[in-house]
Structure formats: structure tokens, C-alpha cells
């Protein structure tokens, strides 16, 4: 019988998740002997679900660093994107914001994670500002708040919210993290737990490889993959144009598969760089809330061993 595998999402269904749906609906998981259940996005974070063994896999981001430092059993096994897709955005009509230092004193609509402040401070200070701003925790409402002027800026996934804004003709501007001293990263990864990986190495390999086939297919056949994603999420995805435009950007921008043809593989250097950056910023805390004194071994935060050849 097929082995059951569950995977939790980090956000409502979007093009970052395309590989999962393609692999599922194209039968790649079936062929790998897996019965994959894609858990819906909800208030309970994917990291929490995975670390607590409610889900076997989950989509994660930078949070993985802070959570693992705090003792969560999380390990990245697949890089959904090869470069940073995140971006700091604000409305284009805010002409007074010329560079990041102008963000000092403004209001940020955030998602409630510790690394956000570090990241934004870095950007502002790198530009010569003080790095002090107001944070309002909004979660999924951040983008409405930005549109309606309640907050001055936020962070976005440029291949999703950015594309949407462009399609809708909402004029926005933004700063790329990498331009202001933040190391490049795999913004979105798939993570599992050491406990699961050790107990189910075969299934883990099967899942990660089949998932890679899914992303591979999406890169090769973006139109068909997009339609497939829409078809299996009729209720949620009501704007086909957004899906296809977003996919186009993910593919053409070499996010899903790098120019060198790398797909899914996690770049040790990027993990080390991001980890070191966060460690130096002093936001990696242990389970008791104490700042980590020893630089952790970030090599343990990820593995490529389930990717196969």
C-alpha cells in the first residue's frame, strides 16, 4: 500500500506550492508509492506542525533558523527557490521614500517573527539610517494594510504579491534585501524533522524526489502546470492570470531552477551565510530565550541527502 505522507503549507495556495500539486495530480507521488495529503494553510504554522509531527513535511522560510535554534525539530530538505524572492515594498506614491534610510520612523506591517526586524534594520542601517521603525503585526492582512495606507511598508514575496500588484496596476516600489547587506537565501524551502527523516528515510527520499519532479515539470510546462494548480484549487485560485504571470516570473527569473540547472538542491553557502547573519544579529535564541553564545552548526539545519542523484 502507498505510504501516507502529509505536507503543510506556509500560506494560502500559491505558485510556490506548484511542485507539490503537480506531483500529486500528475501521479508522481503515486509512482513513488506515496499517498500525499497536502494540508491546508491555517493559523497553525507549518513549522509547528512539522516539529510536532502533525505533518511530515512543511513549507518553511527563514523562520526555520530561529525555530530550530529554539529547539524545534526542523530540517530543510528541499529548496523551492534558488534565490531570494522576498522584497521590501511600499506604495509608489511615497515619493519621500528614496532609499531605505527614509524608512526610519515609519510603520511596518509584519508577520510576527523575530527575524523581520533584524532584516529591515539591517537594510536601513546599511543605508545609513538608524534602523528604528514601528512594527504592527498583521499577518495575512499586511497587504491590505499597505494598499489602504495603514502601514508604510511591508515585506512581500515578489513572485506572488508583487505580480498581483502589477497585474492590478497598483504602483509599488521596493528594495531588494541583497542590495542592503542581507545575504541571499532560499526564501522558501521544504522542511521535515530529524525524527521523521530518521524513521522514514525511504519515504522521505521518495517524497523529495517526486516533489522535485513536480517542480521540474512546472518549469518545463508552466502553462499546463498552472492550469493544473488552478484546477485543483478552484475555490481558492480565482484569478488564472495571476497564476500564469507568477509562474512565468518564477520560471523566467530562474527562481525554481537556476540558470545552472540546479533545482531543489540547497546551497550550503547560502544557509551558512544566512545562519551566520542571524547569529551575528543576536536573534537566534535558545529554548529559554537566551541568545545563542556558540555559533550553531548550520550544516545540521539542512540536508540534500534525500534529493537523490
Amino acid at each position: 500500500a502507498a505510504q501516507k505522507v502529509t505536507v503543510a503549507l506556509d500560506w494560502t495556495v500559491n505558485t510556490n506550492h506548484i511542485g507539490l500539486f503537480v506531483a500529486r495530480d500528475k501521479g508522481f507521488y503515486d509512482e513513488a508509492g506515496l499517498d500525499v495529503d497536502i494540508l491546508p494553510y491555517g493559523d497553525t504554522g507549518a513549522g509547528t506542525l512539522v516539529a510536532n509531527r502533525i505533518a511530515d513535511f512543511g513549507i518553511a522560510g527563514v523562520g526555520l533558523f530561529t525555530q530550530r535554534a529554539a529547539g524545534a525539530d526542523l530540517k530543510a530538505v528541499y529548496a523551492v527557490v534558488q534565490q531570494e524572492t522576498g522584497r521590501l515594498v511600499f506604495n509608489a506614491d511615497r515619493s519621500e521614500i528614496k532609499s531605505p534610510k527614509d524608512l526610519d520612523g515609519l510603520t511596518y506591517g509584519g508577520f510576527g517573527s523575530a527575524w523581520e526586524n533584524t532584516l529591515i534594520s539591517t537594510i536601513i542601517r546599511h543605508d545609513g539610517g538608524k534602523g528604528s521603525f514601528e512594527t504592527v503585526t498583521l499577518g495575512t492582512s499586511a497587504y491590505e494594510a499597505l494598499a489602504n495606507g495603514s502601514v508604510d511598508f511591508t515585506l512581500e514575496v515578489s513572485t506572488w504579491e508583487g505580480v498581483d500588484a502589477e497585474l492590478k496596476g497598483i504602483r509599488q516600489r521596493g528594495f531588494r534585501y541583497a542590495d542592503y547587506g542581507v545575504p541571499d537565501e532560499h526564501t522558501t524551502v521544504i522542511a521535515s524533522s530529524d525524527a521523521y527523516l530518521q524513521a522514514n528515510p525511504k519515504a522521505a527520499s521518495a517524497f523529495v524526489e517526486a516533489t522535485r519532479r513536480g517542480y521540474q515539470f512546472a518549469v518545463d510546462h508552466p502553462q499546463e502546470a498552472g492550469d493544473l494548480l488552478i484546477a485543483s484549487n478552484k475555490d481558492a485560485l480565482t484569478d488564472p492570470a495571476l497564476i500564469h504571470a507568477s509562474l512565468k516570473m518564477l520560471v523566467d527569473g530562474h527562481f525554481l531552477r537556476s540558470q545552472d540547472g540546479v533545482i531543489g538542491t540547497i546551497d550550503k553557502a547560502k544557509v551558512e551565510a544566512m545562519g551566520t547573519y542571524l547569529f551575528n544579529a543576536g536573534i537566534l535564541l535558545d529554548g529559554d530565550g537566551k541568545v545563542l553564545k556558540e555559533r550553531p552548526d548550520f550544516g545540521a539545519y539542512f540536508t540534500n541527502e534525500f534529493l537523490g542523484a
Partner: protein
Amino acid sequence: MLPAPSRVLLQAWENRAALAENTLPTIRATLAGFACSLVAAFVLSALVDFLAPLRRALFPLLIVSQTLPLVAIAPLIVLWFGFGLMPKILLVALVTFFPMMVALVEGYAATSKEISQMLAAMGAGRWRIFWLARLPSALPYFFAGLRISITYAVVGAIFAEYAGAAKGLGIYMLNAKNNFRPDLVLAAVAVSAALTLALFGLAVLIQRLAMPWENAGSESRGGKPSGESR
């Protein structure tokens, strides 16, 4: 900022299939959860009525159970009970239980002294007094509580879905919102409001049927024909 009502209606109609499909699980969770909390409220309130010490021990616990910010515990419930119907039923029960419980307990206490004395003199035990006098006395209170509860039932189910569900009005709203479709969010909100209104109407109807004496002898202005002041 908000889409026009006409647009909401139109979109609701166009997406009626999806809406219907997502309403069903919510209704199921609402009804099941509400049924549980109804039973629990009756059983627990009766228990507490019989055992005063239990009341003193249980009430703080119950209050605490209400003070747990749902936002904080909904994820926990998902962690414990997974993504099935169970956690939704639990959350709905948790949300709707308290108003009925409080109303019942207050209602029992409103029983006329004379009537319970008379029953005791008839040789009625505590259980009979409860059944014959305290429970009927608590009915108007109970229905006040029921009306409050029932407005929370649907909301509770939607909330539970936010914490994690495959289908349901909550999920539909969440998706619509993150896909920048406020019109569909509002359509789902309208459906949930309609559901609640229907449940509320049902509660009022049941009250009418359950308390026929409330309208007896009331052919007069002002007030009910309650035997006497209380």
C-alpha cells in the same frame, strides 16, 4: 475599500457551487459542536447544581476555559486532534458552552423558594425538585443563553477552520482574502450570517414551543403573566 453589495451578490451567485461546497462542512461542525455543548451544558449545570462544592471548583476552571484566547489555543487543538471534524466540534462546543452553562446555573438559582419547599414537603428528592422545578424555572434563562450561544456557533466553526481545515467557510474566506478577493470574503461572511440568523430564528421558535405558558393570560399591556414578581 469595500466592494459594492451588488458585486458581492453577483459574485456569490457565480461562485455558488464553491460556496455551497464550503458551507456544508461548516454546518456539520456547527451542529455537531452545538449539540455537544448543549448536552455538556445540561449535564454539567445539573451536576454543579447538585454538588455546590463542585460548583466552586468547576466554575473557575470553566471561566478559564473561556478566557483561553482562541487564537492561542486553536493551533493547539489542531496539534492534538489533527485536521478532521473533531477539533472543529470541540472549538464550537467550547465557544457555545459557557453562555448556556452560566444561564442555566443562574436560572436554577431563580427557582421560587415556595415551590421547592412545597416539593420537598411532598417528599420529592433533590433530583425530582431539580427536574420539576429548577429546570423549568431556568428555561427563560436558558433560552437567553441559547440565543447568545447560537450566534457564536457558526463563528466558532469558522474560527476553527482558520486554524486548519481542508474545506469550510473559514478556509474559503482565508483563501479569498489572500487571493485579494474581498468580494468573495464578504459573500462567505453573508452566508455565515444567514446561517446564524436561521439558527437564531430556530431558537426563538423552539422557545415559543417550549414555554407555552409564557403567553398565557397575557392579554394585558406590559410584562408577562409570571405568577408574581421575582
